[in-house]
């Protein structure tokens, strides 16, 4: 069989990091080839090299058995490559048709013959069986549809090789199934697909061949028929796979949080969430499941005081906190791990020690008599977090941005657990970090839960949600639509509640 | 990204503001460029002339510190600069002229610097120098100082003052005899007592001829905003409004702002078909502004000439001749330091009446008021 891509002995180093070391890879034409590896294993670098975004220090690349110099994404596109990024690059107010055309022509949209393009695009849609309505605007589309538009975009630009970067990270199981059907159609039509993921079940299901990377090195390429998930995982992390911890908890008696009839609407009067009522006990992890954008983010932000609510009441232990500001609420022992650590939880160019005070400004511990910042207590706390959470850093005075994502996240989680909080709100606590860090964070969440902490957990990783939670509520279009017992459900069932298929 | 963008935003603003703060806009910059040229030319002939005339004796050194507005105001800074150049040409003195920054201790520092640099005569052009020059003249008792429009205490400092109200009276007479609408305008640069003298003299002159004439009095700015001395756009705006309201003669005492008034006169005359007039100030503006902008020349009725150049020239001459004296030196319509110009010939027909008023002022029969 012909090779769509041949990568020979690619090496790429960044200051202090060997991102790709002598990496070779062969992808057969018309196959689905998965590349798996932990964060930092070198997958992204390899893809950036393939797509012409990064120039390798050494090695060569052949596309359709022809040595090709890729010095920009344009070169890659001209050679027949197309990339679907994890984060969609679509403008909400454009129609699907306009989005596909955008950037193809030098002409402005006004001068383009939309009808001619439309018929050409329809041919592509029909050929690959894509199920896209060209007349909708982007903001009307669901996540899965948006992804198909991205795929259509690259196909319409003539791509014969598709690179998909973590395509399932944003999808619920039903959407994943739909994506896989599309990918199979594409494959049948001769398109080569490179599929980057760390979700091994999915990889085993869809891929013909699987390449495993670890620490910048290509460990192995295997046939997906001949390998088990366990073997694959061990190849990937070099040791045996951590599992979401077993639940063996007994939920406590103390009522930590009680939310009553909470409702909020946006400026247009549209409901964000509606009449939400729930309790949280001590030693309990309450999972909130929902497809992104269904109100769960705003709900937890309402609890810490960022999101305003029109009606309802929040009680922390015995105290009604509705009239308190964010700082007062945090001061009462609410801890918050926001979903985007770099944008919401850290000051990237401040030192770790300075970051420990973030969100704890009102804590007596970090003050001195003259309301000045108490750096010595901050240093002590910072060092203790670094020790307890195995944060890999030269010292507490390193700036946050110098740490890897996983270490940043461990530090954030450590900080939020440092001062014995009453309530922890954890939003996507292990998103985008390596398995080692993930396991440690799971372990810490579980042990502090066992010590009495009440936790509200939001996660797009349904296995994580099911594995950690003592109870799961499903939020759909701003309403709680179901309360489930984690040991009675699978990700598929949960997904059907989240998408409103099941009620 | 946003970080970068905001940085550039700031930089942009900063530079915009620095430019505005230092220059008062591109008009100034252009003027200064024009001004530098004669300065360059002037340096060399002055020094060579001095060297040729008396190679053994050091030349007399003169320093002129101009006021805000600087060269190119077609008014009193340019007049002083003219007198300074006349002195240089006549006596081969070595000259330096400086322009101070706006505000601050800078004036005093420049005066001191000139004194330390061995200048024999230091001229501060404008009453704003009074505090600084009093101090400087006290510190350098052997140096001659001269200040325009003010009188200060030190014996080595000459106060060159002008009876601007008398000249304004005469152009007021000319305006009153010229108007057909019986409406006349006055534009002052900045609302300060110095300019009030122009205003009240002018009003007195107009009313001496015909007390029924309406006079519309406007000022371009109020202190500490001194932009009214150098704001042609504002001048044009005010003049257009006054002409619109029926005035057919306007007198300005507003430095560079007056240029706008003459432009307005030309514009209004062209659009309405009936000729309206502007009256110049400080220099014979038929020649200066009219020379620079020929299309406004025919609308310059006359000018109230305040011969700062004569006073400056005299100060240089007295220094060279060793006859310099401190104290007030007043120029008026009798001495000729204050005058009315007949250039252009538009008021030749009423010359006798104007000169009769001059005689009455000289004789003391008419006492022109100088303050409100």
């Amino acid at each position, binding site marked *: 069989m012909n090779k769509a891509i041949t990568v020979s002995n690619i090496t790429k180093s960044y200051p*202090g990091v060997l991102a790709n070391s002598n990496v070779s890879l062969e992808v057969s034409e018309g196959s689905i080839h998965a590349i798996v590896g932990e964060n930092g294993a070198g997958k992204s670098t390899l893809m950036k090299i393939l797509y012409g975004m990064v120039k390798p220090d050494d090695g060569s690349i052949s596309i359709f058995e022809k040595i090709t110099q890729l010095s920009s994404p344009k070169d890659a596109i001209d050679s027949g490559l197309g990339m679907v990024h994890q984060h969609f690059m679509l403008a909400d107010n454009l129609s699907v048709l306009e989005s596909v055309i955008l950037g193809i022509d030098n002409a402005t949209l006004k001068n383009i013959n939309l009808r001619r393009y439309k018929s050409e695009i329809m041919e592509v849609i029909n050929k690959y069986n894509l199920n896209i309505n060209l007349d909708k605007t982007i903001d009307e589309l669901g996540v899965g549809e948006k992804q198909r538009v991205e795929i259509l975009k690259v196909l319409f630009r003539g791509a014969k090789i598709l690179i998909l970067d973590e395509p399932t990270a944003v999808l619920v199981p039903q959407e994943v199934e739909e994506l896989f059907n599309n990918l199979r159609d594409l494959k049948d039509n001769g398109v080569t697909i490179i599929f980057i993921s760390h979700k091994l079940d999915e990889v085993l299901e869809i891929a013909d061949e699987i390449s495993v990377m670890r620490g910048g090195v290509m460990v192995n390429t295997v046939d997906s028929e001949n390998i088990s998930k366990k073997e694959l995982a061990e190849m990937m992390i070099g040791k045996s796979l951590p599992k979401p911890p077993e639940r063996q908890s007994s939920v406590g008696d103390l009522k930590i949080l009680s939310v009553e009839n909470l409702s909020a609407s946006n400026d247009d009067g549209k409901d964000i969430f509606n009449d939400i009522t729930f309790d949280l006990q001590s030693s309990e992890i309450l999972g909130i499941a929902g497809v992104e954008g269904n109100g769960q983010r705003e709900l937890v932000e309402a609890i810490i005081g960022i999101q305003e609510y029109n009606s309802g009441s929040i009680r922390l232990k015995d105290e009604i906190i509705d009239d308190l500001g964010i700082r007062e609420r945090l001061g009462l022992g609410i801890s918050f791990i926001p979903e985007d650590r770099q944008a919401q939880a850290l000051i990237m160019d401040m030192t770790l020690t300075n970051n420990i005070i973030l969100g704890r400004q009102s804590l007596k511990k970090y003050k001195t008599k003259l309301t000045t910042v108490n750096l010595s207590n901050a240093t002590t706390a910072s060092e203790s977090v670094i020790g307890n959470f195995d944060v890999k850093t030269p010292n507490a005075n390193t700036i946050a941005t110098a740490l890897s994502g996983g270490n940043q996240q461990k530090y954030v989680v450590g900080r939020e657990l440092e001062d014995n909080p009453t309530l922890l709100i954890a939003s996507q606590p292990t998103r985008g970090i390596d398995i080692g860090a993930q396991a440690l964070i799971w372990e810490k969440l579980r042990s502090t839960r066992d010590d009495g902490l009440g936790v509200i957990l939001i996660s797009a990783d349904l296995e994580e949600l099911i594995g950690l939670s003592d109870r799961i509520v499903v939020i759909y279009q701003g309403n709680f639509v179901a309360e489930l017992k984690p040991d009675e459900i699978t990700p598929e069932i949960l997904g059907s509640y989240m998408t409103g298929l099941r009620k | 990204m946003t970080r970068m963008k*905001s940085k550039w935003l700031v930089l942009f603003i900063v530079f915009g503001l620095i430019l505005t703060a230092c220059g008062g806009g591109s008009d100034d910059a252009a003027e200064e460029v024009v001004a530098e040229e004669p300065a360059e030319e002037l340096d060399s002939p002055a020094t060579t002339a001095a060297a040729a005339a008396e190679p053994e004796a050091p030349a007399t050194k003169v320093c002129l510190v101009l006021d805000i507005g600087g060269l190119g105001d077609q008014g009193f800074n340019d007049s002083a600069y003219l007198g300074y150049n006349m002195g240089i040409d006549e006596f081969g003195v070595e000259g330096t002229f400086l322009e101070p920054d*706006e505000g601050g201790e800078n004036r005093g520092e420049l005066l001191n610097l000139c004194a330390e640099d061995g200048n024999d005569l230091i001229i501060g052009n404008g009453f704003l120098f009074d505090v600084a020059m009093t101090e400087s003249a006290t510190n350098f008792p052997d140096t001659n100082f001269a200040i325009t429009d003010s009188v200060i205490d030190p014996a080595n400092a000459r106060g060159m003052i002008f009876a601007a109200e008398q000249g304004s009276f005469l152009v007021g007479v000319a305006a009153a005899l010229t108007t057909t609408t019986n409406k006349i305008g006055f534009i002052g640069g900045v609302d300060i007592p110095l300019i009030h003298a122009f205003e009240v003299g002018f009003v007195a002159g107009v009313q001496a001829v015909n007390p029924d004439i309406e006079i519309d009095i406007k000022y371009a700015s109020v202190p500490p905003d001194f932009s009214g001395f150098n704001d042609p756009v504002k001048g044009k705006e005010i003049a257009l409004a006054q002409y619109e309201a029926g005035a057919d003669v306007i007198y300005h005492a507003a430095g560079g702002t007056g240029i706008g008034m003459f432009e307005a006169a030309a514009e209004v005359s062209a659009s309405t078909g009936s000729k309206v007039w502007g009256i110049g100030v400080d220099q014979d503006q038929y020649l200066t502004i009219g020379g620079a902008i020929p299309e406004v020349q025919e609308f310059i009725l006359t000018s109230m000439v305040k011969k700062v150049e004569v006073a400056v020239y005299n100060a240089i001459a007295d220094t060279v001749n060793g006859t310099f004296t401190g104290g007030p030196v007043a120029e008026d319509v009798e001495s000729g330091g204050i005058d009315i110009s007949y250039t252009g010939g538009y008021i030749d027909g009423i010359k006798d009446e104007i000169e009769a008023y001059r005689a009455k002022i000289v004789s003391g029969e008419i006492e022109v008021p100088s303050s409100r």
Partner: protein
Amino acid sequence: MKLRLRLVSLSAPLIALMLAVSLTSLILLGIGKDPIETFRMMFEYGSTGKSIVSVLNRTTPLYISAVAVAVGFKMGLFNIGVEGQYLLGALLAAAIGTSFAISRPIHIFFIMLIAVVASSLWAAIAGYLKVYKGIHEVISTIMLNYIGTGLIAYLLSNIFFDKDEKNAIPQTVELPESGRLPALNNLFGIEDLPNLHGFLPITILLGLIYYLLIWKTTLGYDLRVTGANPIAARFSGVDPKRLTIIAMIISGGFAGLVGMGPLLGYFHQYTIDFPPGLGFAGIGVALLGRNHPVGMFLGAILFGFLERSAQILDLRGVPKEIETMMSAFILLIVVVFYEIIRRYILTQQIKDASKKIGEN
């Protein structure tokens, strides 16, 4: 940060200065002047005793103005209105300060207090407009500068004008002796030099207060955090509305002190000759000094030195506008190099960190 990186971070202003000197030299050559001779003249004149006193006197208001701007910069607020704030504060302090006479330290304290209160209230208007009306502070402070100029003109000409025979131009009554800050010349034994303003020690104290406020208090921490990452700051409990108003008030408070050096040490009254432009110049100094108390002090000295030493130029036939251009070059270049060096240092820190982690 390592010593090596600290030194690297100092290189930006030095590079900017050198490049600005080179560019200025090219321009001097272009107009037929000898650059070496020009700079020698400037340095020679700028380093005389009198000049040093004058440079220090210039540094005082420039530095405080930079500090006022920097307080805003630290949280990402652009207070372009220091100009109007300090002039208004100085006018009110000068005018009201004459209405009472008490012992000197108390009198001076009250004059300063009036300036601080007036300026910070004026600045607070911009804070209020931003928080409650959504008007960007750049727009509102620029507009407030214009309004301030008009207000000052009105107050000076109509309310506070000391109408006296000899006063041709609007000015306030002179401050009584007790309201004047004595010069420091006796202290340093430099009686033969021009007056060294008594505000210099207060200026240094203000620099220290600024440092403590920004780096050693919770409020300063909130300001810095908000400037670096407003979203994270909000998640940490910072109330951006409250903080914006507080920052504008503090910035305006510092602005109020900008005019105090000239007022208490030289003019003793508000006249139309009271130095304008310091508020804008302070923006440049804050940029050059990267909002750092020591950096801004050096920046203020540099600009003060350039301004003073340029006085000699016209006397020697070189247009003094050269100095304005040079200052502009310095600012333009330094901003570029600060960014280049910031990135370099960041990569170095990441590299150092990953190396050390590797060693452990």
